[in-house]
């Protein structure tokens, strides 16, 4: 039964030993299942000379089963003409829904589920919203992007009432009207939404508007320091969340000490981004995910390209499942003129210039090592009086952060926002 803090206290605070036993049980069911049904898994395992009979424990699984990368899935898809890249374990006709990843870093990957009442990805999120404080009868600003399916299912599962108004780019002016009217307790925010809210804050009392909120989720990209401070000023407690290799969501709890994975649903590993060995607790590693709850397109030791720090120490909230802190994407590190930096360095630099403080930018990078630092930067056309002056200020800020003078392409924010996808602006692009 739910308690004041947890929707499923017996699962969310399960002792680690019980959780490991549950994971092992599910892994040992999964191993023969995927070997028989997933063409990509079979190919990878045959290449690695691994058979289901070799796997008798969780330790065997993490030591012997080969990784699957996004490139493996794409390669299989292109070679075999299989839209699911060899991941589908049922017939297409036996699936209920097929959704896809955002596609911000390349061709979107398909994933499917079979379900009856609630979409599985959002079902697990109900635990997170409950901990944030969403309760039956509460209103939730329930829109967003549907690329992962009906996200309002997590609201409806909890007996909350989704208020479905557009919160896409250009929609927030009217979404504020819905906030005034229904006083929701929660909304989903993205970086692009924050850029829009930043403009709207000039004519609206954001602190009063958001005073009904118990929290707001933020996902899709890192939350910059300025944006975090701004949300704090508005009185919004922000809960960063991300996905566990596209298996489920992982939200911060009220302790704000890492994103909680649901390990009864996903087996998480953190491995050396350049190798295969597990990294020590708290060290930088690549998130590797195995689905424990999706018999349709289960990912098996999927290398997500997400760089994280992870711990399995219990959280102060009482939950025992693994927590992790997203750090960035593998391959985002860029070397220009022998100097190394990550997109967050440019982000922080742009936040210091008022006209570009929303930090809407794209690093134009044909390769990881480049000769010139080309950055496309969005500026606020309402407050920018001199483009040449702005160019000087932005150049100086980036030069100071990265140590290399940038080649800038300045665009009004609306033009740059139009290049977003799924609520995200790709921060690293090839052209």
């Amino acid at each position, binding site marked *: 039964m739910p308690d004041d803090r947890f929707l499923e206290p017996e699962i969310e605070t399960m002792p680690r030993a019980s959780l490991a036993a549950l994971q092992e049980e599910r892994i040992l069911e999964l191993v023969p299942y995927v070997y028989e049904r997933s063409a990509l898994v079979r190919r990878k395992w045959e290449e690695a000379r691994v058979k289901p009979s070799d796997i008798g424990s969780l330790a065997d699984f993490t030591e012997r089963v080969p990784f699957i990368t996004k490139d493996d899935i794409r390669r299989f898809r292109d070679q075999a003409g299989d*839209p699911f890249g060899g991941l589908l374990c049922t017939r*297409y006709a036996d699936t209920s829904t097929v959704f*896809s990843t955002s596609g911000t870093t390349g061709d979107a990957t398909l994933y499917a589920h079979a379900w009856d009442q609630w979409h599985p990805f959002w079902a697990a999120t109900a635990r997170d919203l409950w901990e944030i404080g969403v309760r039956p009868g509460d209103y939730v600003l329930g829109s967003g992007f549907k690329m992962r399916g009906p996200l309002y299912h997590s609201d409806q*599962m909890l*007996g909350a009432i989704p208020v*479905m*108004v557009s919160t896409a780019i250009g929609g927030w002016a*009217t979404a504020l009207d819905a906030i005034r009217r229904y006083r929701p307790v929660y909304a989903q925010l993205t970086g692009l939404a924050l850029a829009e809210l930043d403009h709207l804050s000039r004519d609206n009392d954001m602190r009063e508007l958001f005073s009904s909120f118990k929290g707001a989720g933020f996902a899709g990209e890192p939350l910059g320091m300025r944006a975090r401070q701004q949300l704090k000023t508005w009185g919004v407690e922000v809960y960063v969340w991300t996905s566990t290799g596209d298996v489920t969501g992982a939200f911060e709890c009220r302790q704000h000490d890492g994103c909680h994975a649901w390990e009864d649903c996903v087996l998480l590993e953190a491995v050396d981004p350049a190798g295969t060995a597990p990294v020590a607790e708290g060290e930088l590693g690549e998130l590797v995910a195995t689905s424990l709850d999706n018999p349709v397109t289960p990912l098996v030791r999927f290398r997500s390209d997400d760089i994280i720090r992870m711990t399995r120490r219990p959280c102060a909230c009482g939950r025992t499942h693994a927590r992790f802190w997203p750090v960035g994407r593998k391959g985002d590190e860029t070397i220009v003129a022998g100097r190394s930096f990550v997109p967050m360095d440019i982000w922080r630099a742009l936040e210091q210039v008022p006209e570009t403080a929303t930090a809407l930018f794209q690093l134009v990078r044909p390769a990881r090592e480049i000769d010139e630092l080309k950055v496309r930067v969005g500026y606020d056309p309402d407050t920018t009086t001199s483009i040449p002056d702005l160019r000087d200020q932005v150049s100086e800020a980036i030069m100071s952060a990265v140590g290399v003078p940038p080649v800038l392409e300045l665009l009004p924010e609306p033009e740059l926002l139009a*290049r977003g996808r799924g609520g995200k602006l790709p921060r690293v692009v090839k052209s």
Partner: protein
Amino acid sequence: MTLASTTAAAAALPRPWQWGISRYDIAGQHVYFEISWDDWRRDTAWARAMLADHGTGPDAGLVIVGGSFESPWFDPFETAARELGAPYSTGEIWAFEAFRTGMYARRLPITMIFGIDRTVAEGLGDELAEVAGRVPVIVARPDAAGLLAEAGAQPFIVTRVGPAIAVECPHRSGAHLNGAEWTLAERGGELFISTAGPRAHRVSEAATGLAGRLAEGPCPCGRTGQRVTVTETQGA
């Protein structure tokens, strides 16, 4: 399983009568409306019959194109597809998301695209003709019909009418309104809507912001309710 345990935990919680709240805009005015769970169930049953008429069944695959905020109109069709055993994917109605509708149509055995609008049709660019040639049934919003026809499709029409939705059946005799729930009146070429069923949202002769014409009398499909042809959107 996680889903099973979470579903069981959630089932023990009290549930309000509202499925959700949404809004339609008439000439810049926001009209909020509530949808009850009973409304949603009846809408889903009606959507199921409309999709079945278009051949949706276990061998079908759908892309349903609509914004998340349009879920009161389109979720019943998503649920209906699932109930009919047809897998579905969702496309969004933003230009930058048009690629997703095209990707599903290209990669999956899609038999119907439902709800495509002009923004997505334009966003598909050169791919539109390929999509039009590949997908047997396209049910489009009125503003996309011309583009799709130019691309070689013979689209049927789906249109939001205030809080309601109207869908053309395979006989192409105007978009059917669910007469058990809503009635339309036409005055001077403008459409006005009234609640007919036991819905949470009650309106009487409310402006829809749409110009169009109505057809009464039986359709060859056997339905007897009103059919609407939207000719112009007036700031909706």
